[in-house]
């Protein structure tokens, strides 16, 4: 019995860390711009593809080195893409009604999905993800742990630590938190808001890109629409944790991963998906600000 629980715990941590890494991107952008960045889920997908192409084109040998190269490549690729998206699609709408920006975000999201489907080198078909980490299974006290899952868990912890450090200790992080608190006042203090927004997008997207590679390592089938479900669940995680709060997003991700793994044992997958959204409904009814969120008073 203990081993079953331990095994499920590993699964929950792995799933939760993917959701947490994704949720951070949603929550940071929402904090600064009050925008639900739907394209984030597709940046996650692009990240997985960047890892795929790096591994295949350079013919890397499976192993931790290859994994690090792929993850770094995916992070850089995703960050560049997100910065371009922000510059081209979101910046012209900075002063427009918030709804316009959100619709644009949906447009960008679909553009990336259908676009990747249309370009010949990605295409509509499912692709088998290469074994960047070779298949080996360790057994620790009756719990089976594949090498891929181990590496994913360690990398997630490292990435989350780096992220927490950036957000809470560096000047960029401080400026990010300041601009999510009050955009105008931050600009009056001499902070370049555009640059902070660019950093926010880049950091969030880098986490998503890494999450994409790691997701594909554990669930090794990728297609242009792979980001949709994890993306929307990560958004639910961000809402559960309180949108706008980075620690909230991390914890929300693990909560969602835990609940999903706990129910996966008993329910077929379609109910598992529905469950994530019942959590959203429950949170919206009883605590719309989430666990760590701060209520925003609407001015008349």
């Amino acid at each position: 019995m203990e081993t079953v629980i331990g095994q499920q715990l590993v699964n929950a941590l792995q799933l939760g860390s993917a959701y947490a890494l994704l949720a951070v991107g949603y929550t940071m952008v929402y904090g600064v711009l009050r925008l639900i960045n739907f394209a984030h889920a597709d940046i996650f997908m692009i990240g997985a593809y960047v890892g795929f192409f790096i591994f295949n084109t350079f013919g890397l040998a499976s192993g931790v080195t290859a994994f690090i190269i792929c993850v770094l490549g995916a992070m850089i690729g995703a960050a560049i893409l997100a910065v371009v998206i922000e510059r081209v699609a979101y910046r012209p709408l900075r002063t427009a009604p918030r709804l316009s920006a959100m619709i644009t975000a949906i447009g960008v999201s679909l553009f990336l999905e259908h676009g990747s489907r249309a370009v010949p080198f990605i295409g509509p078909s499912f692709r088998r993800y290469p074994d960047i980490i070779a298949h080996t299974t360790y057994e620790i006290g009756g719990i089976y742990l594949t090498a891929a899952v181990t590496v994913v868990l360690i990398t997630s912890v490292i990435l989350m630590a780096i992220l927490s450090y950036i957000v809470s200790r560096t000047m960029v992080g401080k400026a990010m938190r300041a601009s999510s608190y009050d955009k105008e006042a931050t600009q009056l203090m001499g902070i370049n808001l555009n640059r902070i927004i660019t950093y926010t997008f880049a950091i969030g997207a880098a986490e998503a890109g890494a999450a994409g590679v790691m997701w594909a390592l554990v669930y090794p089938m990728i297609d242009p629409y792979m980001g949709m479900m994890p993306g929307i669940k990560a958004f639910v995680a961000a809402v559960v944790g309180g949108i706008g709060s980075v620690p909230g997003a991390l914890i929300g991700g693990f909560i969602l991963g835990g609940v999903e793994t706990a129910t996966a044992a008993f329910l077929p997958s379609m109910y598992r998906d529905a469950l994530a959204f019942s959590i959203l409904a429950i949170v919206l009814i009883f605590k719309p600000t989430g666990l760590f969120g701060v209520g925003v008073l609407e001015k008349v």
Partner: protein
Amino acid sequence: MSTNVKPKRRGFLGITFEGPSFWISWALFILVPLLLVAVLYARGDINSYYYDVLMRIGIAVVMSVSLNIINGHLGQFSIGHAGFMGIGAYVSGVLIVGGNPGRAGVSLRIPGLFSNLPVFNIGGYDFSVGFILAALVGALAAAMLAFIIGIPSFRARGDYLCVVTLALNMIIVNIFLNMDYVGGARGLTGLPSFSNWIWVWLTVAAVIIVSRNLITSSHGRAILAVRENEVAAEIGGINVLRYKLIAFAIGAFFAGLGGALIGFHVQFINPNMFNIFKSIDYMIMIYLGGIGSITGTALGAILWTFLQEVLRPLGVWRLVMGPALLIVIMIFWTKGLTQSELPFIIKKKAKKE
């Protein structure tokens, strides 16, 4: 969103429904296209391809005008409109052809509840009592679902409705995909061709009349007030949650009708006909035509359906065009077709009021 709280009395497609000609214009609006297309098609002057395009345009108008009630008049942001359409299609479909309670592949159909009701044939068009009942039940199911979903989403700030409806749409598709009773990924097949131009046009007329009368009534003023400023509306004694739910349910009701119409037109339904990409299509239509305007959203639906037919040779790139167009509209052309000051658009006459 414009700033004028006062509902403007304006017509549809240039016809103003005012003064002594009020009833005449409405009657003409309902009867002329209804009879024109019905007679021409029955005579064989419209070939089946154009008839199909006309049907699709009509259903798209139903969908976009009903989505406009939620997104344009109520000012909320629902993006899972095809989900409600799917509910309408599947509920009405099961009520007519029944479902398969056995495993997939084993044909063991339970006949639908309304399968044995009389069907009249007038001038080559089927008038099925069962279809009318089934479509209404399907639409009511969609409206009820909207009501249930609306309660938690409307309690929170506006952004959440869009995520909830997006998620709802994906879940609905997912559930249909996994439900053997309605055929799983193969979908429901063998639907009789009960849907025809007469029903489609009557629904188009109904959604336009309901949506227009809704915004000019006192309830509609309340709905518009909610759009302009929720807090002020609440202070003004309007039950904001109630009006949001009413408008949301009405929008979903017509989406359900649209689903029944498309299902019995193409004679089969499968889950992917109602996926999130379909919803985005309806969103493109209303923003292309001009959000908040009934004329605009109807025109947007016509234009976008037509464009998709014309651009069929583009293949997969046609899919990319929609989102790209949406981005361009949002950045450069927020007001859409009917509300922008373009030289080739007839200026609306409502200003004189």
